[in-house]
């Protein structure tokens, strides 16, 4: 209850009726300024040939201003009551006020509990999530739609983990991450179509191409910091997309590339009736053909890719280069004074992050069978970044939770059409209000001098 009692002195009872009226008056004035041009005048046509006229709608303006005025007063009164309730809840140990106060205070505490939880608890959560992920296609209620959803969520988890290296560890705000995703996707598509290479041969190549692009793009811009870097990477993301649209002979422009080969299970294709001379997956294993077999296979491919990304990150965080990334995020000047080459260190983070985006991109291409520049717009970068930031920068588990929340849960609002984005936005606002540093902002040291729990 300490939080609520500490809150009360900041809102002394002096904000009485006069203050509320003043506040509402200001709000009404602002709404008047807005409502006049927006509601006040309307251009109406008088049918053919008779021209246009300006219609005045003073009643609309008055209604809007009054509504804002009254609404603002109501809001203020309600807030005051609400605070009073919290304060009572804080002081008196029982009563309704206490219950409300506790309920309101519980929401932010939930995150804090998760955060302060012992590592054993976090490991248990991670293990449970992994078990669910492994068993997901086998659950009886998981139909084709949920399986697909699992693939999408895992794709974002993987991309989030990849971007987490760049943003969460190295602290480089990259708004153009989707560019490397696109490079990976187009690398796979073009290599597979023109050189007849399979998915598993293309995967490392696509990763290498994306990493190469990461170095080429990163080299000139990584001396920039913070917002400047963000803007330049945003630009690069768009440049790559525009090149994809305009480089018609290679990328087929806005029409995209179709007929991208689907992955095969060690050479066994997933097809109802495979071409002459090849054995399909279901025939080889003597199963009934089902389209979900291919999706389940894709599911495990992306799960494996995501886990590789995660293990790599967990491991490299404990290496000197990983610590140097985090040190750079904390203080670049101090790093230089310790003899760390900031440019090379940032470049490795940028390139490795890009490599994982490249892997993700190849997977995307093979899953869809069709890619076009439209799939690589800025909103994708923004979603991946949102997953990293909401999850808690640098937290691997946080990325999973944020991806499930942002992608999985908002997917259920799909029927609501445009309201889905509303739910997305509301979720983001809620997290930022309660957990401004992300769902899980906790960070464990990568090495310890004293064993945990041992009193030094």
């Amino acid at each position: 209850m300490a939080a609520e009692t500490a809150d009360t002195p900041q809102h002394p009872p002096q904000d009485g009726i006069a203050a509320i009226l003043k506040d509402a008056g200001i709000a009404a004035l602002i709404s008047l300024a807005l409502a006049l041009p927006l509601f006040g005048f309307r251009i109406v046509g008088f049918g053919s040939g008779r021209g246009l006229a300006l219609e005045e709608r003073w009643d609309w303006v008055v209604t809007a201003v009054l509504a804002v005025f009254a609404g603002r007063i109501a809001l203020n009164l309600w807030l005051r009551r609400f605070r009073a309730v919290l304060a009572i809840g804080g002081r008196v140990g029982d009563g309704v006020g206490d219950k409300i106060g506790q309920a309101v205070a519980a929401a932010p505490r939930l995150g804090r509990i998760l955060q302060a939880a012992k590592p054993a608890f976090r490991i248990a959560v991670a293990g449970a999530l992994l078990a669910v992920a492994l068993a997901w296609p086998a659950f009886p209620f998981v139909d084709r739609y949920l399986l697909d959803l699992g693939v999408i969520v895992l794709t974002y988890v993987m991309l989030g983990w990849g971007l987490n290296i760049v943003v969460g560890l190295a602290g480089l705000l990259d708004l153009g991450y989707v560019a490397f995703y696109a490079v990976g996707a187009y690398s796979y598509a073009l290599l597979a179509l023109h050189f007849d290479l399979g998915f598993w041969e293309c995967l490392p190549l696509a990763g290498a191409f994306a990493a190469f692009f990461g170095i080429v793009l990163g080299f000139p811009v990584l001396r920039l910091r913070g917002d400047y870097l963000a803007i330049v990477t945003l630009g690069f993301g768009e440049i790559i997309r525009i090149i994809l649209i305009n480089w018609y002979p290679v990328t087929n422009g806005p029409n995209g590339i179709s007929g991208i080969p689907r992955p095969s299970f060690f050479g066994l294709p997933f097809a109802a009736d495979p071409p002459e001379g090849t054995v399909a997956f279901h025939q080889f294993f003597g199963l009934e053909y089902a389209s979900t077999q291919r999706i389940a296979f894709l599911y495990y491919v992306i799960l494996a890719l995501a886990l590789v990304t995660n293990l790599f990150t967990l491991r490299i965080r404990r290496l000197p280069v990983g610590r140097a990334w985090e040190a750079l995020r904390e203080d670049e000047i101090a790093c230089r004074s310790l003899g760390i080459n900031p440019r090379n260190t940032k470049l490795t983070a940028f390139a490795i992050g890009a490599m994982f985006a490249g892997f993700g991109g190849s997977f995307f291409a093979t899953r869809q069978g069709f890619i076009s520049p439209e799939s690589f717009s800025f909103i994708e970068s923004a979603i991946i970044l949102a997953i990293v930031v909401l999850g808690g920068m640098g937290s691997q588990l946080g990325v999973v939770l944020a991806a499930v929340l942002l992608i999985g849960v908002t997917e259920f609002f799909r029927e609501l059409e445009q309201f889905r984005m509303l739910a997305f936005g509301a979720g983001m606002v809620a997290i930022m209000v309660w957990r401004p540093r992300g769902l899980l902002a906790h960070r464990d040291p990568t090495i310890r001098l004293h064993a945990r729990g041992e009193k030094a």
Partner: protein
Amino acid sequence: MPAPDRPLLTVEHLTMRFGGLVAVHDVSFTAAGRRITAIIGPNGAGKTTVFNCITGFYSPTVGRIVLHGGRGDFLLERMEGYLIAQKARVARTFQNIRLFPRMSVLENLLVAQHNALMRASGMSVLGLLGAAGFRHAEREAVDHARYWLDRTALADVADIDAGTLPYGAQRRLEIARAMCTRPALLCLDEPAAGLNHAESRDLNHLLRFIRDEHEIGVLLIEHDMSVVMEISDHVVVLDYGRKIAEGSPEAVRHSPDVIRAYLGEEEGEALPPEVTADLKGEGGAGAAHERGPAETQ
């Protein structure tokens, strides 16, 4: 063993301009190995700017800065900042402490050993594979860190975030971190600022220990005269970017130019007792010297 007074650092005709402002004007001095050389002067005299030139954060407008290292001379004014730390082995601390606040104390000290560990981890490849050589190198790095943690009384808090340490401990950690780079020259920018009396005394012990046992040169910016007078072997006094005096603490303390710089231009005025006391090294810890009124305009 090198002669104790062999110059370790030579600064010649150093000038640093920021637009029209001349922050450092034609300053020359040397700092010897195994000696503590103090740079003192009123606020804004250009002390930190000299440090920034030595450690490569600024490139001087004019001048030569040479570090006479065990493996030859380094022309610091031509080197990139991180190479000065890496190759010429010049380590520094900052006037406004710059730790890695969201990393643990031990991690701060391991980051300081980055280059050695990076080589041992085969540019991360061997490290990713978990090679034995790397694990051995990391254990050694932890031992080295442990050594400095013990010297700075931070071993107990090795696993907590550096940003949560009290102020005095953060100052010590910054020195420990600089020492973990195994420097030839250690540059400390006001290490005693904000320390209480006991902490300031411990700092003196630590600096003497560093000078005597590790045989490295220390360049020390300090406002606290009790620290300067007690531990420095040589003092350089700056005022308005110029060197106005240089010599032993005794000589500097009695130099009329120095007294004037610290007191303002009005000569002949009786010295306020706390200033005289300060100049004689009797002042309490943390006494800051503001310019006299005649100079602040």
